[in-house]
């Protein structure tokens, strides 16, 4: 099963997966910072929900990472 294309596949899976996740986290931070600028008193709740949402977004990249690890070490 081992093929010389495996590293390419793993790198592609992680790289493309990270694109979406990175964009998502950037958009999230953008929204959170804007609402912070408009409403600085709401720092606590905004920060908490931002971190939660970032964790969800990051999970997509983590799926890609799991796939990349699977390609590299298991397949």
């Amino acid at each position, binding site marked *: 099963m081992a093929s010389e294309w495996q590293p390419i596949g793993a790198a592609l899976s992680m790289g493309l997966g990270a694109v979406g996740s990175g964009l998502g986290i950037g958009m999230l931070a953008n929204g959170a910072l804007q609402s912070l600028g408009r409403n600085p008193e709401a720092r606590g709740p905004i920060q908490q929900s931002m*971190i*939660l949402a970032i*964790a969800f977004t*990051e*999970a997509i990249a*983590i799926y890609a990472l799991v796939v990349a*690890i699977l390609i590299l*070490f*298991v397949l």
Partner: protein
Amino acid sequence: MFFKPKIILILSAVLSVLVISVLGGALGDSFGFGFLGGPMPFISIAAETVFHISSPFSYDLKNSTIMLWIAMIVIIILSWLATRNMKNIPSGLQNLFELIFQFWIDTADEAGGKSARRFLPVVITIFLGVLIFNWLGILPGVGSIGKVETVEEWVHHHSHSGHCADDYKSDQTLAELCVLEEEHNHGFVVFDTSGSINLMPLGRGETTRAPLSAIGGYVPEDILQIKKKIKSGTAPENINEFIQIQKNIHDGKVINLYTKESDGSISPQSYLGKNTGELIPFFRGASTDVNTTLAIAIFSMIAIQFWGFSSLGFKGYGGKFINFSHGPINAFVGILELFGEFAKTISFTFRLFGNMFAGEIVLISMGFLLPLIGMMPFMGLEIFVGMIQALIFSMLTLVFGVMAVTSHAEHEDH
């Protein structure tokens, strides 16, 4: 003020640790230092077997299972200490636990009103469990203290992976060479002794993996020739040497390994007496095993389905998924939601597993690249990620529970 002896002492200590760690790690390795360089870690997705019993039933004790038991003991002791003599005005551990419970009661009230408080036993159980699993998994020593597995164990674990199965049936010698080629990425040497295949990972810790052909100075063709001679009954003149090589490999020792220089030439290097094999850690964070996270996810989803059925009734909750009375679009949406329930389980599983496993790999790689100091910032990150993942897992259970007990009719009123 910069010339105070204390400050100079601290600064020089920090600087020397920095220099030592940079030179001793993988970076310094390419300049000829690398004295702190640990072995290149072997990353295994499945939990490793620490202990195997075959009678009265076959059971592999995995290292993540041990960690799970330790985590259970820790949780039980912590809870016992916190509730041992409870006071009206809490202090210490009781205060911490009350803080956690108060946080969850507030969150539940916010998410689904007072009725959502009945989800809390499950939710807080998941929170405390996952939190302790995650945090115990990043303790120093977890994943790095272990034993080197023997050849027999290695064969036992890996021989079933089916490399060149067809060739194996037709020709043992072919199979041997085939596995030699197959496993060269992992640096495994394969020898065939009396019908059973022995596979041997090369010595850990070498920066350049020795080429397979360099084992004992023999290239695979030589070994093939020698084996053919043995098979046909004529002993070659160097049979004793060959037997010694086989014996050394079987004992977990590799002799006369050669390292490949950067210009392609091969120079001898003695690995005599060096133990070879993969490191099997005694402990492995419970949440870095996909079975643990899958078990928690299934538990959580069953609890959610139970809440849905018990509060909306069989017809009410089942109608969310199988619903033909409101036209084909609603029927399709219902089926999508049915699949969504399974997707939630998988998402639960891999979110926790992926985060914790990735954290483990980051820690391992930083220990490899920058020993002594490289791990420190990532340890802090892992403590944070461990808490966030526990929070997310239990928060999602709570939110999905609230969603499950909300009937469709209520939804449309909003």
